[in-house]
């Protein structure tokens, strides 16, 4: 990497930024899920690693969350953006040099931010835990350079039209900058009380709704038509999806605070909008599944399609849960329980991770022009990820329902802890399977880069998957 930092832009091979982002994202995924597995072990076995301040759950929880969001997910997005955006515009990335610096600053900055969190230096607000100087560094040192590269690549494209994926990429990076600027305003302007609570959850909601969800969906809009060779089923439904994300996802933040003393009309407004999150979900899922027409065999045979369609299918329970769990009728029961933890993992580890996984698999093979080192290991990764995730999701959902019952009927806390203990062990087993799968994935991609069979000019990696 160092030789590219000070090289001329035209001397840096196309795709360099994306490859660095791709490997960085996998490494952060291994780190993030490793810490997640460690944290889950502490919940399953209370005597596991006690007596050390820096291994306390309270210090490690947010390190896990932000390593996964800003390390794995966001860097996988950056990888996808820096190779898909130019590909869709029949051009090169606007500046590979800016991209390489972006990778370096992102990795160094995130390491610093997570170290501070680990030391207990935190804003104390969930999801926006990072302190404000680092938030500003993320906005201007990480997100804005990425945005500049994406926007300028779209501006300098060699096509007249802009494909659906690039609408989401260009808008997603713009919106996440706004989310960071506005969502961290309690720290910038020392807001407290309800204002702080509302802005905290506006940030948390919209990091999901205006960054992770639309950008993950954008990747699927590229992967499915590209790998299957089918045309995207409907450009028109793409419009419906895009505008409904922008309109309906940006408004329901108050549904995270249904029992708080916010104005009641704001909660009513947010709750209706919360259900309407199903509108983009229906548009997205129907468009992608209809694009698969005639190519469903690839769901079994092809690694990228297997990952992508699994992610698309997981969008159905994700949005059904998300749409309805925030209504007053249901929220009183599951609020503040493991159900929410399960739902968050359905969004980040289920829906979005499978879509990003496909992008990283496809991108690294395409950019390095090397065939996947081992299809068997890729399938191992897929099944460990899927079974591990499902184990986690189901066990935490059940634990959440137990906690909900305990909360409503005022069951003594220790009795609830005992009742949910088996599910905490299942959570640890599921999380550890995900971590194991990711270690295998890192090995597989590393070996792909080093010894993968070269792909002949004019062929695509997925066309060669079964050829020896």
């Amino acid at each position, binding site marked *: 990497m160092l030789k590219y930092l000070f090289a001329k832009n035209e001397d840096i091979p196309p795709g360099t930024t994306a490859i660095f982002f791709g490997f960085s994202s996998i490494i952060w995924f291994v780190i993030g899920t490793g810490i997640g597995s460690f944290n889950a072990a502490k919940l399953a076995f209370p005597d596991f690693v006690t007596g050390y301040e820096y291994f306390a759950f309270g210090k490690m929880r947010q390190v896990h969350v932000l390593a996964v969001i800003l390390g794995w997910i966001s860097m996988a997005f950056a990888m996808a953006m820096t190779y*898909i955006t130019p*590909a*869709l*515009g*029949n051009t090169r990335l606007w500046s590979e040099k800016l991209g390489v610096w972006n990778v370096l600053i992102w990795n160094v900055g995130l390491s610093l931010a997570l170290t501070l969190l680990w030391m207990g230096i935190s804003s104390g607000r969930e999801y926006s835990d990072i302190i404000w100087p680092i938030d500003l560094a993320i906005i201007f040192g990480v997100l804005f350079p990425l945005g500049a590269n994406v926007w300028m690549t779209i501006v300098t494209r060699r*096509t*007249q*039209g802009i*494909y659906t994926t690039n609408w989401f990429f260009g808008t997603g990076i713009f919106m996440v900058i706004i989310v960071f600027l506005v969502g961290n305003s309690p720290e910038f302007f020392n807001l407290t009380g309800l204002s702080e609570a509302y802005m905290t959850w506006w940030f948390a909601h919209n990091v999901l709704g205006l960054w992770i969800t639309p950008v993950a969906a954008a990747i699927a809009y*590229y992967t499915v*038509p*590209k790998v299957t060779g*089918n*045309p*995207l*089923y*409907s*450009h*028109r*439904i*793409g*419009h*419906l999806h895009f*505008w*409904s994300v922008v*309109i*309906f996802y940006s*408004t329901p933040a108050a549904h995270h605070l249904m*029992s*708080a*003393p916010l*104005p*009641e*009309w*704001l*909660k*009513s*407004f947010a*709750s*209706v*909008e*919360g*259900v*309407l999150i*199903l*509108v983009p979900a*229906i*548009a997205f899922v*129907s468009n992608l599944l*209809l694009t698969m027409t005639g190519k469903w065999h690839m769901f079994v045979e092809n690694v990228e399609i297997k990952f992508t369609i699994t992610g698309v299918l997981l969008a159905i329970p994700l949005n059904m849960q998300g*749409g*309805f769990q925030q*209504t*007053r*009728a*249901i929220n*009183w029961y599951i609020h503040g329980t493991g159900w929410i933890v399960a739902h968050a993992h359905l969004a980040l580890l289920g829906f979005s991770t499978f879509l990003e996984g496909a992008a990283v698999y496809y991108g690294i093979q395409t950019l390095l022009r090397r065939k996947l080192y081992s299809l068997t290991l890729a399938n191992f990764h897929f099944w460990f990820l899927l079974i591990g995730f499902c184990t986690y999701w189901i066990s935490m959902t059940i634990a959440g329902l137990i906690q909900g019952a305990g909360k*409503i*009927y*005022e069951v003594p806390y220790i009795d609830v802890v005992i009742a949910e203990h088996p599910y905490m062990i299942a959570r640890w087993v599921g999380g550890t399977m995900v971590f194991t799968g990711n270690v295998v994935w890192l090995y597989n991609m590393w070996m792909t880069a080093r010894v993968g069979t070269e792909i002949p000019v004019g062929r695509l990696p997925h066309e060669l998957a079964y050829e020896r």
Partner: protein
Amino acid sequence: MGWRFDAPLVSLTDDAQNKAAKELWARESLGGIKEDNNRLPRPVIWLLALTILTAFLITAPLWGQRPQAAIYQEYVALMDDPQVQSIADPNGKVEYIVNAVKSKGSKYEALQERHPVEWDDLMLIKDQVIELERKGVDLEEYTIIGPWVTLANFEGEKKPDGSTIRKQPHWDKGYTIDVFYVIYFCVAVVIAVKRLPEFSWVPTHAGH
């Protein structure tokens, strides 16, 4: 930007612009990706309509609410009635009370039917309801959770005396804003989509 308004549900774009869009659509390669021009399938349109309807219905406080203490106030008042006391069977006592309240007519009739109780339930809440009546509080702000009568876990607007309303609204300006929001959204998306070539036109993907 050529507009036409003679057939708004078919196309909002004039023929020249439609022709240019079709030519571009067929000619241009976006990194090897092709796009079709299919309409939203009818079942999906119905699903979206159902979603919008559901969004309003399910968020209004029709479903899933715990029973308010107020709906049992009339039941509790009849528990010490000599005629009730003279009935030995607990089920018979409740049946008598329910019929007596129903025959008199109660504004809580629908909620009473939705939240039936047994004699043992009434025995558990009786003293608590009487105590709250003595304090003069609004029993619609109290809910029954198992054996307890507790202040509802609901925080509404402030009353003039500074206390908080504990009753869920059936309608407020949040819903009104939503009605307009959804209408604006639907109109805007229909305009965006009707600016495209009509869905009966199938792109050829020539040159891909």
